[in-house]
């Protein structure tokens, strides 16, 4: 990568509550000593598990009741609305439950390139005067504006330009109609009835249309095989054990069933009431017999056609892994791909897992991006930014490309978003963990950051220039040509920010050299440079404490009269690990 942007990741303190890493080989997974060591243990940003607990500050929330950082793993979600990202239509929750997680209108994605598809008519556009007033009729197709794919390629055309989802559900690729679950059910009932004649009225009150006659050996798709199987098992369960209906109907006591009724009667009459027929019938469930019951026998020649097609049409006729992943069923060929209905999205409110207070709540309206409540960590904990201390030298490509074994200084700027003065302690391990041990020294590990007061207030204070000048003293020295940061002193200080210097001696990335110079881990697994190993990452333990109004959070504006009470100060403390990616080590 040519460019490198420095970054700061924060570890949510909830990580401690997660199960500890352990391997089966360890003798004692959780011994007393290891849990004791925990506080001393430095956090290794390169450990594979670190990826799961580190977040950019923008992803974190802050619970004002627990006074703790909350990451996506320690919040509870609550869905506010479901909506289609394409048409921004708000979908009611009942529809989500019954219709699934896709947009049921006309929003589709191209199965080839996932660009949104548009509905257009096959008929040519009328030309000439007043053409825009004419409506275009005729069959419609879905078109991709990006790759020019059209649903005509898979032989699908629609009669109406709207409600594509419903229309598509009835057509197979190639244009044949799909036998819907409803028709299958009709057919099944028809078969079971056989003797009873006359038009039956459906449960919906709809006159029954002629059910399609189904072939007992047909090859079913997953959906219909499932529905056939379901019907089969349901009838088998009902048949096999009518008396023990209770077992299968969950909370439903099933008193409506004659079987259950006779069993209850049987309780008093010594079982003679239970009719013998049902007893004799109470046998095993049988297996599915044919396709109508969901049985699909593989014919030995069924796949010859696929191989043949592969051979003649080659690579380009097959769907790629990415395209396959988007499909709901397994598809091998491009011709079998179907337009993808847009996946719905949600707006979610977040609650703290411990105290259940709402941390973030968006407006329920789809179009607005505003939040009603949003307690982000950005407003509560100091943010960190990284800059190189020395200006870019002529031969240097990037300020963040550091030379191995050459001490390099970086400026960490902490910005305080709080309205209180904050004390910050930072600590780093002297050597970063991992195969390449970089030496790290923080020149000023303890400092105070001014409150995030009004900008006006500071402007007013500008009058007392003397103090300001005093504060900027260290900065002044630097500009006078003294490029030496002093240990124990803040480099630069502003209204609500402080810069400190951290000095890094990057390790050499070469694997050559005598063994005694290498770290223990390097000897153990040797080998080539892995991904991101050349990035200079420093784990930093940050402790922030400040004094806040105790009443501030709890009762907000209510404590109008009790001004004196709100004067009670409460000490707050936060401690967390951060990972600072300061630069990339140059490779020789």
């Amino acid at each position, binding site marked *: 990568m040519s460019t490198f942007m420095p970054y700061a990741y924060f570890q949510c303190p909830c990580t401690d509550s*997660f*199960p500890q890493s*352990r*391997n*089966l080989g360890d003798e004692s997974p959780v011994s007393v000593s290891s849990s004791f060591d925990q506080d001393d243990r430095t956090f290794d940003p390169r450990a*594979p598990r*670190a990826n*799961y607990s*580190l977040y950019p500050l923008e992803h974190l929330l802050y619970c004002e009741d627990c006074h703790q950082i909350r990451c996506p793993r320690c919040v509870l*979600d609550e*869905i506010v609305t479901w909506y289609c990202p394409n048409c921004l239509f708000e979908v009611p929750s*009942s*529809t*989500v439950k*019954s*219709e699934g*997680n896709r947009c049921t209108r006309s929003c589709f994605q191209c199965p080839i390139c996932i660009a949104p598809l548009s509905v257009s008519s096959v008929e040519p556009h009328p030309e000439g005067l007043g053409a825009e007033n004419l409506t275009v009729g005729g069959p419609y197709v879905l078109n991709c504006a990006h790759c020019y794919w059209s649903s005509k390629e898979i032989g699908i055309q629609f009669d109406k330009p709207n409600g594509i989802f*419903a229309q598509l559900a009835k057509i197979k690729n190639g244009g044949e109609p799909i036998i819907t*679950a409803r028709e299958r059910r009709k057919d099944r*009932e028809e078969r079971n*009835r*056989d003797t009873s004649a006359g038009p039956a009225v459906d449960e919906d009150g709809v006159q029954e249309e002629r059910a399609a006659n189904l072939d007992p050996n047909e090859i079913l798709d997953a959906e219909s095989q*499932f529905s056939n199987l*379901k*019907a089969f*098992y*349901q*009838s088998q369960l009902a*048949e096999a054990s009518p008396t023990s209906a*209770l077992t*299968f*109907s*969950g*909370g*439903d006591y099933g008193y409506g069933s*004659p079987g259950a009724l006779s069993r209850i009667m049987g309780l008093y009459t010594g079982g003679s009431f239970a*009719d013998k027929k049902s007893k004799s*019938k109470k046998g*095993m469930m*049988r*297996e*599915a017999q044919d396709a109508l019951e969901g*049985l*699909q026998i*593989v014919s*030995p020649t069924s*796949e*010859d056609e696929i*191989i043949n097609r*592969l*051979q003649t049409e*080659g690579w380009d006729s097959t769907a790629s*892994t990415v395209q396959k992943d988007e499909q709901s069923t397994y598809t*091998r060929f491009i011709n079998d791909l179907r337009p993808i209905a847009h996946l*719905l999205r*949600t707006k*979610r409110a977040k609650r703290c897992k411990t105290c259940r207070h709402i941390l973030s709540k968006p407006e329920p309206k789809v179009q607005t991006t505003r939040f009603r409540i949003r307690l982000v960590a950005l407003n509560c904990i100091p943010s960190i930014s990284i800059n190189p201390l020395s200006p870019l030298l002529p031969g240097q490509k990037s300020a963040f490309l550091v030379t191995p074994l050459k001490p390099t200084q970086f400026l960490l700027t902490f910005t305080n978003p709080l309205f209180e003065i904050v004390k910050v302690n930072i600590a780093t391990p002297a050597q970063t963990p991992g195969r390449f041990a970089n030496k790290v020294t923080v020149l000023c590990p303890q400092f105070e950051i001014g409150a995030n007061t009004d900008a006006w207030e500071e402007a007013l204070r500008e009058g007392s220039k003397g103090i300001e000048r005093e504060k900027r003293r260290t900065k002044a020295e630097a500009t006078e040509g003294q490029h030496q940061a002093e240990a124990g002193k803040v480099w630069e200080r502003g209204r609500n920010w402080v810069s400190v210097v951290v000095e890094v001696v990057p390790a050499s990335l070469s694997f050559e050299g005598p063994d005694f110079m290498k770290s223990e881990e390097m000897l153990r697994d040797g080998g*080539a*440079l*892995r991904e991101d190993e050349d990035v200079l990452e420093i784990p930093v333990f940050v402790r922030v404490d400040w004094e806040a109004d105790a009443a501030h959070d709890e009762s907000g504006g209510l404590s109008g009269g009790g001004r004196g009470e709100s004067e009670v100060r409460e000490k707050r403390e936060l401690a967390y690990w951060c990972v600072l990616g300061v630069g990339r080590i140059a490779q020789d």
Partner: protein
Amino acid sequence: MSATTGPSHRNVVSIRSPPSTNTGVLTSPHTPLRGISSAFGSPSALRAEEDNVIIELGSRYLRAGFAGDSLPKAVVDFGPEAQRRAGDYRRWNVGYSKEWRKRTRGNDWGERHELWEPDLRNVDLGLVGDKIDRAMRDAFANHLLIDSRPRRFTLILPSALPLPLLSTILDTLFTNFQPPTISLLSSSALSTISAGLRSALVVDIGWRETVVSTIYEYREVQCTRSTRATKLLGEEMLKVLGQLVSPRSAQDLQGPEATAAFRDLVSFEECEDVVTRVAWCKPSERAQKNAPSQGLTPVKEEDEFRSSMRSLKIWGGTEVEAHVSLPIKSTKAPKTLQIPFSKLAEPCETALFATGVSESDLDDEETPLHLLIYRGLMKLPTDVRSICMARIVFVGGGAKLPGLKARVLDELATLVGKRGWDPVQGKAMEVFRENSNSRKTRIRNSEGGPLKISPDQRTPASLQEIDPDPIEEGLRREARKHNPPVEAGNLRAIDSLGAWSGGSLLSHLKVPAVSVIDREQWLQHGALGASKTVEVSVSSRQSMGPGAFKAGAGERSSWTLGLWG
């Protein structure tokens, strides 16, 4: 996504209400069971929402969805891109995909795509938990679109999952998602159910291993496994591609060095893409001779090389071998490989069928597929074998390889025809078999002197006609009235919807799982709290009268991990 159509209010009804109101054969009037989950038996589908989330975990994918759906709504893989830090968007960088070599360094082939590997000594269980947690969140937030309200989970697992892994999985689910209960179901049994069967031989051609499990009457009777699975197939494909990309390195290097070199030539993703798109499986020699496959007729052996040529003639219709062009982008410079079509079937030959390796050279854990199934069947009792051989269910990623099912069945038929169901085999046995007839008569002649044989006893008892048993006959006839005859004794493959759909079906039908773990109890005791009775007595399950409801409500004192305990 359900494919039902029409206005939503009608759909709710059609989904929830029983599909058949008349269960034809029954003579007595009978109210069918309702598939309603509400505790109060309310027919309102909208209120009856305590949806059960079905989760299937494999070594590479997590499938999740709701009970009653035919297919999982979310299939999440454990690929390396899913394992990055939050807010790390480097995969959208220009030229990111070109740099895959740097990323795979120091890893085994395909290791970064796995959730766990079979050797648990190298597995960081905490990491497994993290991966599952992230995959579940992804599935819930983006595909299932549900919030973190507690829901019951049904977990589908391979039947031989090690206890530490199981414990990690349950820990993760219970602590991070707060389900009140988790039911455990075994994937092989569910594959049987979703094929509509009671008994089956489930051949799960997975990532790291192929597992052949025998399910008899919904119970796992036996399980054999082999390392010949999709991973090996991918590695073989990598070799084929590597040799084409750089023929020179293939000649210079040998063995593991060559494989290592190939790994840097073509990326894992692309290799897998090739496997899923164009790899295929040659038909067996017998099918190539165009002989109609009938029962168990023995077939002569033929050498392997001619087979590929012949297969092409049969299918291609042309004398010239067809070439397929594969555009490969992950090489240093993008290339289009021209590869003979028959070459694309070779990885399957070497990886799954171990062609060219004699049976005696193979280790126990690397038995080729057909042999694995054959041995699995042979160990079974005759009755179970005859039922199961007619119900071979292929599941798993490897089963999608075109031509594989037919090939395995053919190979199997050949084996059975050649060896019968005799565990003893080898050269000596063959010689013995040839001579057995003559020897038998010889022995009889030599020993015939003092022994007096009555005319009745001339044929051994096993070869005698069975006396007709009128009672047995009557019973059979009676049974046939209710149950149609059971297909048995010939080889037959059956398609299954897969374990996930089976789990969805079962929990939709409210069939209770043997192992239902309560959250409180798990958090209190962990895996140690489970009672060790693996075999749950049938009587206790059938006697689930009204008392069962109390038990179902979580007041059970003892619980079990079932198969996994």
